[in-house]
């Protein structure tokens, strides 16, 4: 019984930690969004790759993952080239206007995990 309770708490804590990566208070993890549109600019740089995407009359800044992780997940620089259409699922920043952190992105029918 106690062991199950410990296991449950551990799982809950680790799930919470995973979803809150870099997200304590500065990303709205309770309300995930999907932003889709053409890529306006693309920076394949550390510590995180970033793209800007025009969607719904706004230009969103979308924070992706470190370049080494992007590459190992198959999302090399050409995947997020300017002009490509991307669909990004993630959390909106509560600090910076029109910025979101992507959990995963889909380009040309292929989905890449960012976390």
């Amino acid at each position, binding site marked *: 019984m106690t062991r199950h309770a410990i296991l449950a708490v551990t799982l809950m804590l680790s799930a919470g930690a995973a979803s809150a990566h870099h997200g304590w208070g500065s990303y709205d993890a309770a309300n995930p969004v999907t932003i889709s549109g053409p890529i306006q600019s693309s920076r394949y740089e550390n*510590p995180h790759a970033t793209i800007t995407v025009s969607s719904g009359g706004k230009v969103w800044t979308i924070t992706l993952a470190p370049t080494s992780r992007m590459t190992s997940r198959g999302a090399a620089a050409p995947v997020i080239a300017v002009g490509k259409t991307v669909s990004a699922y993630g959390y909106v920043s509560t600090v910076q206007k029109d910025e979101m952190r992507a959990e995963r992105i889909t380009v040309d029918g292929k989905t890449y995990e960012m976390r």
Partner: protein
Amino acid sequence: MMEDAPALFIAIEQSNLGASIRQSSWAYPVANIGHIVSLVVFAGAVCVMDLRLAGAFAAMAPGPLIVRARTVAIIAFLGLLITGLTLFAAEASHIVLNPVFQIKLALIALGLVNVAVYEFALRARVAPMPAGMPMPATARATGILSLTIWIIVAALGRTIAYF
């Protein structure tokens, strides 16, 4: 957000150095790991010095122990400085406005003031002390304060990315 930063820090971020750190596949991770490794060594040396000042390891005379640990601490601090400046240059305009980073810098300054307090006010008394002699209260306070400051600095460093 970037527009809010002082021009100097925007210039650092936009410099060739800042751009090369971001665009390199290894520079940022190497600086990141180097910062942590330097921190580990620094923390070890600081613990030896501060715990001795706080009264621990009383079987050893404080003078020679602190002198040797200090050399290690200085080398590790230089490592922290170089790797820290590398990480900072990549994102200077954002980091400089980060409240956690600002508190961290203030506490580093306080930690260094504490070193100066030891050097100028306490060392003459503490360094010649033989093993086993009880530490003066001011030395104990300096050691505990120093340890507290550097632990908070380390914790704040890890917290910068979350604000």
